[in-house]
């Protein structure tokens, strides 16, 4: 290859490299300019809007209760929820038949005292395993029915939360699916979950029982 050709080839390669470098710089400059635009935001921008009763009962939500914002208070809204003990009371369960079922219960559909607990709450996430066939009633009366203690009554309290959500909807302040999802994804201790559900259930203790 002649020197002239070699030299011109080197120059083309050099020009090509220069072009590539320039393109990279341009691309980098585009990215940097984009972030530079973001850089005007010196800190994350998060605005929390104190919602009006979007679902009609914001004041029944946890945040609504904590906000104490009287400007949004709706006196026509009656928040509601029962302690888990109410859900296992004889007046709510109705009489027990000879086959062990409760046909006259006042629980919200689709749940009955015969519903299988672990069809809704995971057995295997470390909270508590009541056994594959344990019913809601058996979990609530776990000592007498299943011979179980030392569970912090977590199943009973979770059932109470579940039934409150389905009975009272937005007036209990938690969405459908919340109880199951919380149990199934809980990363704290069993006692913490039990206490959490107990506190949620006890927020509106002047609620008449669902009979």
């Amino acid at each position, binding site marked *: 290859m002649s020197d002239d050709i070699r030299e011109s080839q080197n120059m083309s390669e050099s020009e090509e490299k220069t072009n590539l470098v320039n393109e990279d710089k341009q691309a980098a400059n585009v*990215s940097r300019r*984009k*972030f530079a635009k973001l850089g005007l935001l010196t800190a*994350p921008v998060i605005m929390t809007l*104190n919602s009006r009763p979007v679902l009609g009962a914001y004041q029944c939500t946890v945040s609504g209760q904590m906000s104490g914002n009287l400007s949004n208070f709706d006196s026509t809204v009656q928040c509601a929820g029962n302690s888990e003990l109410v859900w296992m009371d004889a007046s709510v369960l109705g009489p027990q038949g000879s086959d062990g079922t409760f046909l006259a219960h006042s629980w919200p559909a689709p749940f009955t005292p015969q519903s299988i607990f672990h069809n809704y709450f995971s057995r295997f996430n470390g909270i508590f395993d009541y056994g594959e066939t344990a019913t809601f009633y058996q979990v609530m009366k776990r000592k007498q029915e299943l011979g179980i203690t030392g569970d912090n009554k977590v199943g009973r309290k979770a059932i109470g939360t579940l039934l409150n959500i389905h009975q009272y909807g937005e007036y209990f302040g938690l969405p459908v*699916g*919340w109880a199951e999802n919380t149990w199934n994804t809980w990363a704290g201790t069993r006692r913490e979950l039990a206490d959490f559900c107990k506190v949620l259930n006890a927020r509106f203790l002047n609620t008449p029982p669902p009979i």
Partner: protein
Amino acid sequence: MPDGKHWRVSAGVGIIWRSWDSESVVYESFSGDIHSFDMVTGAVLKLLVQHTQDETTLVNSISRTLEIEPDHSLSLFVKQSLVRLSGLGLVECDK
């Protein structure tokens, strides 16, 4: 610099999204609150909704998604976003 902590969406949090180019608005069903986020903070939360991630992975994912250079400024911004989201109870540090 990211310190390797793992983050995830807090248990019980339920989110409904509406997103635009530069911001997101979310309704969080547990608290009943509505939040508005800048683009990066919204991206952080969206990534954590998918699965638990450490800070380094979050920074790199956001860098790719939003075509932003993954430098110290972005890392700091992500860290601040996590702190703010944690303060709202939306995310928590995985122990």
